[in-house]
Structure formats: C-alpha cells, structure tokens
C-alpha cells in the first residue's frame, strides 16, 4: 500500500453559518472558521456533521471548498456550494445565519500548481465548478491562462458567479437541455477548446462519468488531467477505507487508494475508471 499523504493541516472546529443564499439549484453558504481558512488550498474539502443532536445520520457529509478567505470582515471564512440533494444536505441548506456546525477541514489533496505558467483548462460539472474558481484565481496569479468549461443538465445547475469568473479568459457552458450555452455535454466541446487554446493541463471536478470521459480526451491529447473525484465517504480522514478507488502507481501496480486522503485530487490517467462494483484485474491484493 502506498504510504498516504495525510493532510496534517486538518482540524475539527465549530463553524458559524454567516450566510446562506439560494443560487439557482444550489445554496451558497459561508462559514466562520477562524485560522483554518489559511490552511485551505483549491481542491481541499470539508466534512460537516449533519442533522443536529439526536440525528439518525451518523456520518459527515463532504463538500468541496469553493473559496477560503483568510481575512474577511468576519475573520477566516470558508464558502461552499451545496446542492440540497438528500436528507443531510437539505438539513445543511436549511440552516439560518448564526447556526453552528461541527466541521473538519481542510481535508484531502489539493490541485497541483505548475511552477511555470501554463495554459490550463478547468472543467466542472454541476456543483463541481465550486473548487475551480479559487483554482482559477491562483493559476492566474501565477501567470497561467485559464479557460473554463462548465456543464450541467440544465441552466439552474450551472454555478458560475460573476466574481468567480474574473480570472477566466473564456467560459463555455453546456447544458443537456440547451437551456444555457451549447446544448450537449462538456465532452462535446472539449477537444475543440483544447486545440484552439493549446491547453497543456486540464483540471476537473464533477461526476465520475464526466471525469472518466475527460480522461479519455486528455489521454488522447497526451496532456495532464488533475481531477477531483467524489466517492462515497464515511469518515473523510482516512480511517474507514470506504472511499477507495483503483489507481495505478509509478511502479505500474494498481492499488485501492483512499479518495479522502490520496484524493480527492488525483491524476486522471492513473485512475482505473469504470471500476464500480468490481475490482480491476491485477489490482494489488486482489
């Protein structure tokens, strides 16, 4: 097993809800988190206990960090984009300002930042756009050109706030139903954008199927693809082994790695996709 890179910056805190606004199909929520905002890097996530005292939901829910601000008017802030999907996220999005939550953050790996300016394409599906805006800013501050493609089933599931787009040179939107941008899927427009903008690296976040499809394209072009995966997680801190997926290492060996501490950001071309419900042949220990 690969020695995992434990994110030693994580802390367990009580975070106060500062704001909670509906934006399309999502809620933009910000939390007062103190010092740990300074520790968060694009791609990291937080894990929040949901349901309150006496809840039947005993596991935390993970959310990608949309933005971390060290020194806001309130102090350290972390912002999230939450889809009210099931019981846990509905509880979270029902919280009013001043409510508090138990949060562990920041967790997981972060997007790797090239040491030299590169031409980067950021691809987000649904709320998967959340971690990309902070990344875009960081890349731009390092002199990179940043293009962005966002896709969703329909317009109100595209999360692309005005201020978030500041760092982006171009933004392409696709929706399955054509209610915003180009009708179709992200992958329909990707190749052209890669060619036109001479993309050298792709960063992505979204549903696993999308990440797999992007990997096929990035592999074809022979460019790097860092993707933030989303596996079902029980602990978020590396102790339960529920969140694994098969990843091939430098030694050519495929191992079941934890997406919470060896991820969520992983090298797309190293992930053995389409491994749901089976262990790929030849995996270490299979």
């Amino acid at each position, binding site marked *: *097993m690969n*020695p*995992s890179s*434990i994110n*030693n910056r*994580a802390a*367990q805190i009580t975070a106060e809800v500062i704001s909670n606004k509906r934006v399309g199909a999502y809620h933009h929520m910000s939390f007062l988190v103190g010092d740990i905002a300074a520790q968060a890097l694009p791609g990291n996530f937080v894990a929040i*206990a949901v349901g309150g005292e006496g809840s*039947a*939901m*005993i*596991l*935390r829910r993970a959310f990608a960090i949309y933005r971390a601000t060290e020194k806001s008017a309130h102090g350290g802030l972390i912002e999230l984009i939450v889809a009210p999907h099931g019981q846990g996220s509905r509880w979270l999005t029902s919280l009013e300002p001043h409510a508090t939550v*138990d949060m*562990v953050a920041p967790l997981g790996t972060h997007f790797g930042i090239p040491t030299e300016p590169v031409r980067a394409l950021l691809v987000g599906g649904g709320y998967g756009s959340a971690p990309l805006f902070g990344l875009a800013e960081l890349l731009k501050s390092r002199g990179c050109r940043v293009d962005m493609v966002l896709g969703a089933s329909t317009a109100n599931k595209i999360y692309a706030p005005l201020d978030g787009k500041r760092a982006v040179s171009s933004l392409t939107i696709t929706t399955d139903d054509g209610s915003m941008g180009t009708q179709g899927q992200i992958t329909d427009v990707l190749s052209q954008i890669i060619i036109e903008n001479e993309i050298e690296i792709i960063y992505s976040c979204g549903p696993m199927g999308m990440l797999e499809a992007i990997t096929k394209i990035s592999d074809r072009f022979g460019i790097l693809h860092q993707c933030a995966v989303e*596996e*079902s*997680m*029980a*602990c978020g*801190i*590396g*102790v*339960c*082994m*529920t*969140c*694994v*997926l098969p990843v091939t290492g430098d030694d050519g060996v495929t*191992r*079941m790695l934890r997406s919470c*501490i060896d991820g969520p950001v992983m090298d797309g071309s190293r992930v053995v996709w389409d*491994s*749901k*419900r*089976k*262990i790929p042949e030849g*995996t*270490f*220990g*299979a």
Partner: protein
Amino acid sequence: MTFSFQTDLGGALLPNPILTASGCAGSGKELSQFFPLTELGAIVTKSIMIKARSGRATPRMAETPSGMLNSIGLQGPGVDYFIANDLPWLDAQGARTVVSIAGETVEDYAVLARKMRNLPGVVGLEVNISCPNVENRGMVFSCQPETARAAIEAVRRNIGGDLPIIAKLSPDVTDIVSIAREVANAGADGVALINTLLGMVIDTNLMLPKLAQKTGGLSGPAIRPVAVRAVYQVHAALPDLPILGMGGIMTGRDAFEFILAGASAVSVGTASFGNPTAAISIKSELENILQEKGFATLQEAIGYAHRN
C-alpha cells in the same frame, strides 16, 4: 484518594479502558493528527491477514438509520508489511497496540500467531474469527463452535509467551454464550463483543443491493442494544472472562452501559468516522461519570448491572 481508570484485559494492563475498534482507526497515523495515540488504552489495528488484500469492490458503504453498512473486505498490505512499517511507527509513538489478525483457514491463524511473537509495543492479540472459512463453504469461523475453537486453538498453540488472546465474535449466531464458552475453553483470555451484524441495503434507484458485495456489516448506535445484550449474557454466564465491548459506542454514557453490562474495556469504531476525536471525548466522559457515580475504580463498575 485518586480514581483508578486502569483495566486488565485478560492480562493486558491498560491505563484506561478506551480502545479503537479494529478497522476503524486506519494505521493509527490518520487519527494521530487529532490526538496522541498514547491517550488511549490501546490501538486495535485493522485485521491483518497473511497476504495483501485489495478488499471488496465499491460501493463498500451505505449509511443506515443510526448506523452504517460496510464491506471493506479486510483491505490491507499483509502481515509482513504491517510488521515492517505500521507497527514500528505505532511503537515509536509509544502507543500500546492490540494486533487484530484474520485468516481464511485454521493454518492462517497459526501462521499469523507465530509472526506475532516478540513484536514491539504489542500488548495483546485480537483474533477476528468473524471471517469466512474458505475450507468450510465460506462459513464464518465464529458461527460454529467447532471452527471457532479450531481457530483459537491454532493461535494458542503458536503464540508462545503470554500475549493475551482476545477472540472477537460475531453476533450473528443463535447462542453467543456457547461460542464464548468454546473459545474460552480453547485458550482465549477474553472475548471481544461484538463484530458487525450482517445486513443489506437496497438502492431503490438502481433497484439493486447498494453494496457491490450485496451484504455488509452493520455497525453504529443502531446495533448497541444487541451488543449490550451480548456482553450482559456472556458476563452473566462467564463472569471471569474479560470482555472487550463494542457496538455503537458514541458517548461516555454508552461506554458506561457496556462497563455496567460486564465489559472490562470498550472499543470505539464507527463513532470515529463521524467525529475524529470521539474516543478522547468518550474517555473523559466515562471517567467523569464513574466518579460522579461514586466508583473509586473502573474495576468496581464492571458488571455492576448484574447485582441484585
């Protein structure tokens, strides 16, 4: 007079009765970012097998009301990697380690027991016999008195020295007392109660079992009444057999319930997933409760609910 929180788990002397549960504390490193591992009575490792295991396919997890199902399938790097890497690290932290071992055959248990001789920092052995026996149609060892006995005897014969052996039992049996009696007779110094209950969740969108492996082990507060019952029954029948109690312990109150039922120490499993510092809170809450209730030692409280 100072309060004594010490416990004796079948020969393992621990400064306090709070342990991690096997498979719920990673390699130790992961939790150590939240608290020093020396704070706990002992760290119980995930079950170590002879060879490396990839574990089961995903999805491996489903949340259930006040519980969760898992089918990790004992993913791990194998005993030699463990001895070479994880154990020295634990020892360097000063952690007391209880190594959990698991086998697919009786011979596996014998081999693993031999490897456990003279390891640094190891204070006990937990023998996970809630595993399928490949030589017997995949029947779980601890579900039959004969196979439970065979596995524990193999460990007893091969362990040498006086490392305490704790046999970990499955609750999925008609009569857990008879299994506990069998492993005690076979040489176990104590029993760990309980492992997970076999369960299933069906994903009503896919209309298929949610876990790739179909069934999984149910843990968390949902199963606590079953666990407390098992501890109470075994302690009533075998009052001298030390018990490591577990199953849904989330708070100091819950730990106290197990102590009153007859556990000499408790393991914290699923609670750590929802709360990385759960074991530490449980420890201090339990210590407070015991003192408030007027116990001078943990020892006095063990099995106290059996008085009449």
